[in-house]
C-alpha cells in the first residue's frame, strides 16, 4: 500500500510538471513575428504545461512547401498556418485533423461564434477543416491629403471603374517631358486581386460551382465578361500611365510606392491597415479606405476572404494534439483576436470580438479597420464570393483516382 502511494505521488508529480511541447509554423513576416511570439508567450504563462515553439517558416508558399517536406519526412509540425488557396490540397493530403471534429467534441466552443463568411471558406463538402485565424480581404487605400490637393472630396472614394479612372487622371502628374511622376493607382500585381475583383462581380474562377458543389472543377472560366472587364480596366489604366504595375507579387513594392506618395491609391490587403495609417501619419498624409471598385453600381457581389488558417496535423500523440487544439482555440478567443486585429489589420473572425470593439466605440475612431469587415459582411453569399477551391489538374485527379482504385 505504501509503495502504491509512493508510486501515485511520483506519477502525479510527473504529470504535473510534464510539459507537452508543440511546434507552430507560421508565415507572418516582419513585426508580426514578434507579435505571434509574444502572443505564444502569453499563452504559455496561462498554460504552464504546454510549451509552444513558434517558428517563422517563410512566405505562405514556403511554409506550404516546408509542410509537404516535413510530412514526407514523417516529422510534421503540430500546427501550421496555410494560405487560403492551399485548402483543397491540404484536404486531399488527408494529413490534418479536421477542426470541425475537434469543435464538435469540445463543449467550450461554439462554431456559431465565428463569422459565417469566414467559416464558409474553410468548409468544403460540409466539413470545416481548419481554424480561421488571420483573415483578410482586399480593399482600396487612398491618400486623403492628395485627394484634397487635386480637388477631390476625401470622403468620396471611387466606387466604379469609371470613377477610378477619372480619379486616377486627376491624381496623375507629369513632368515637362511627359513622363509620369505620380500615378493614380498601384497594386502588388498579385492574382489574388483578380480573384477579389471577380468576386465583386459575383463571377466564378473555375467551373462546377467554383469547385464548391462536390464535383472537382475541370476548367478555368475566368475568361468571361467579368474577367475581360478587369483586364480592360488594367490595360486602359496602364496605357494611360494611370496605373503603376509592380513586379509580380511585390507587396512591399506597392506599399513603398503608396507611402512615398508616388501613387494616390493602392489596392492592398486589409492586413496592413495599421502599417498604412501609422506610416502615412509619419509621412504627413492621411489614409482612407474603401471597398473594391465594380464595373457599375448595379453589380452585386462581394469579397472573398483571404489570408491563412491554422491546421492541426495528424501523426502526433493524443495529448500533443489536444495541446495543439488548446492553443488554436486560445488564439481565436476574442481577446487574442482583438489584439491581432489592432496590431495588423486582419479582421477578427469571431462575432463576439466584433461586438466588443463596436460597443467600445473603437470603429468610430478608427473607421479604416472596419472597411474590410463591412465589405465582407455585405457580400452576397454565393459560391463565387466564398472563393474557388481547386488543387489538381483533371489529369492528375483521374490518375490518382485510378491509383486508389488499384490499391
Amino acid at each position: 500500500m505504501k509503495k502504491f502511494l509512493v508510486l501515485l505521488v511520483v506519477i502525479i508529480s510527473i504529470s504535473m510538471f510534464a510539459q507537452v511541447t508543440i511546434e507552430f509554423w507560421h508565415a507572418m513576416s516582419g513585426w508580426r513575428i514578434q507579435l505571434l511570439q509574444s502572443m505564444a508567450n502569453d499563452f504559455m504563462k496561462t498554460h504552464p504545461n504546454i510549451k509552444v515553439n513558434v517558428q517563422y517558416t517563410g512566405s505562405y508558399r514556403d511554409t506550404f512547401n516546408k509542410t509537404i517536406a516535413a510530412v514526407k519526412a514523417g516529422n510534421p509540425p503540430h500546427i501550421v498556418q496555410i494560405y487560403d488557396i492551399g485548402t483543397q490540397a491540404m484536404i486531399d493530403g488527408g494529413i490534418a485533423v479536421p477542426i470541425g471534429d475537434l469543435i464538435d467534441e469540445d463543449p467550450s466552443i461554439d462554431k456559431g461564434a465565428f463569422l459565417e463568411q469566414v467559416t464558409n471558406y474553410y468548409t468544403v463538402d460540409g466539413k470545416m477543416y481548419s481554424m480561421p485565424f488571420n483573415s483578410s480581404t482586399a480593399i482600396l487605400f487612398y491618400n486623403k491629403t492628395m485627394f484634397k490637393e487635386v480637388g477631390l472630396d476625401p470622403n468620396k472614394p471611387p466606387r466604379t471603374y469609371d470613377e477610378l479612372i477619372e480619379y486616377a487622371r486627376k491624381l496623375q502628374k507629369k513632368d515637362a517631358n511627359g513622363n509620369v511622376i505620380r500615378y493614380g493607382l498601384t497594386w502588388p500585381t498579385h492574382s489574388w486581386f483578380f480573384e477579389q475583383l471577380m468576386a465583386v462581380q459575383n463571377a466564378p474562377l473555375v467551373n462546377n460551382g467554383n469547385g464548391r458543389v462536390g464535383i472537382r472543377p475541370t476548367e478555368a472560366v475566368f475568361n468571361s465578361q467579368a474577367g475581360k472587364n478587369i483586364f480592360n480596366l488594367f490595360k486602359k489604366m496602364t496605357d494611360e500611365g494611370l496605373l503603376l504595375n509592380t513586379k509580380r507579387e511585390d507587396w512591399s513594392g506597392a506599399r513603398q510606392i503608396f507611402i512615398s506618395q508616388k501613387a494616390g491609391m493602392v489596392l492592398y490587403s486589409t492586413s496592413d491597415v495599421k502599417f498604412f495609417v501609422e506610416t502615412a501619419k509619419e509621412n504627413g498624409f492621411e489614409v482612407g479606405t474603401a471597398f473594391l471598385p465594380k464595373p457599375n453600381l448595379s453589380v452585386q457581389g462581394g469579397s472573398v476572404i483571404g489570408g491563412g488558417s491554422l491546421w492541426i496535423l495528424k501523426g502526433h500523440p493524443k495529448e500533443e494534439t489536444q495541446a495543439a487544439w488548446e492553443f488554436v482555440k486560445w488564439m481565436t478567443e476574442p481577446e487574442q483576436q482583438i489584439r491581432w486585429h489592432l496590431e495588423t489589420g486582419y479582421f477578427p473572425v469571431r462575432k463576439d470580438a466584433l461586438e466588443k470593439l463596436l460597443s467600445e466605440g473603437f470603429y468610430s475612431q478608427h473607421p479604416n479597420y472596419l472597411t474590410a469587415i463591412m465589405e465582407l459582411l455585405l457580400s452576397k453569399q454565393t459560391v463565387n464570393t466564398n472563393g474557388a477551391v481547386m488543387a489538381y489538374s483533371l489529369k492528375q485527379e483521374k490518375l490518382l483516382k485510378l491509383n486508389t482504385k488499384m490499391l
Partner: protein
Amino acid sequence: MSWKSKLTPYILLIPTFIIIIIFIYWPAAYSFKLSFYQESFFGNRSIFVGLDNFIDLFTDPEYYRVILTSFIYSFSSVFLTIFIAFLISQLLVQNIPGTRLFRLFIFAPYAISPAIAGTLWSFLLTPTVGYLNYIFLELFGIDTDWLTTTPYAFIAVMLATIWKMLPFDLIFYIAGLQSIPDSLLESSMIDGANLWQRMWKIKFPLLSPITFYLFIMNFTTTMFASFGIIDIMTKGGPLGTTTTMIYKLYLDAFAFQNNGSAAAQSIVMFAIMGVITFIYFHNVEKSVHYQ
C-alpha cells in the same frame, strides 16, 4: 602487400563518394524516377505514367517559348560577359598606379550571393523610386519601368547576370594575360603589329583554352544558377518573358506542386547541357590552342 596498395586509393575515396552519392547521385536518380510518375501533393499517392510528363511538356507551345528564352538569355549573356571580360582584363594588366585597388573593387560582385545581387539591381531599377531611374530621368528625361515592361525586364536581368559573372572571367583572363611571355609581344611589335592586331591575333588565340573553359562554366551558370537573380528581380515576369527553364522548373515544383513535370524538365535540361557540351567539345576544341 600489393593488394593493399591497390585498394588504398579506393578506401581513401570512400568518404568523398558517400557525400557525392548522398547529395548528387541519389537525388539525380530520384528525379529521374520521379519524371515518370505523377505524385499527390504530400507524396502519399503516386502513379507510373510512362512518358506522359515529357509528352505534356513537348506538346505545350509555352515550353518551347521558355526554351527559346533560356537560349537567348544564356548565349547572349555568356557572349557579352566573355567579350567584356576580355576587353577589361587588357586594362587591368597595365602597370598603372591603383590597378590592384581597382581589381579588388571589380571583383566584388563575384563575392556576393545572387540573391543580394538581385536585390541590389531591384533597388537600382525600381520604377520611379530606383536610383538608376532617377539618374536616367534627370539626365535624359526618360523614365523606363525596367522590371515590369517588355523587353526591358529581360535586358535588366541580363545586365545583372553579366555584372555578376564578369569578375569570374576577369580573374582567369588576367591570370592568362600575365602568363603570356613578353618576348612574344615584343617580337610582334617589331614586326609592326598594332594594338588591335596584338589583341585579336596574338592574345586571343593564346587565351583560347581559357575562353573555352569560361564558355562551359558561364553557360552552366546561366542555365542553372540564374534562378536567384530572376526570382528576386522579376519572378519570371512580365508575361513570362524572363521565365527561363530553371525558373519554370521552380514554379512547377514549388508553386504549382507538379513534381512529375518538374522532374521531367530537369531531365530535359540535363540532356540539353549534355548535348551542348558534347558538340562543343567535339567541334570547338580543335580550334583551341594549348601552349
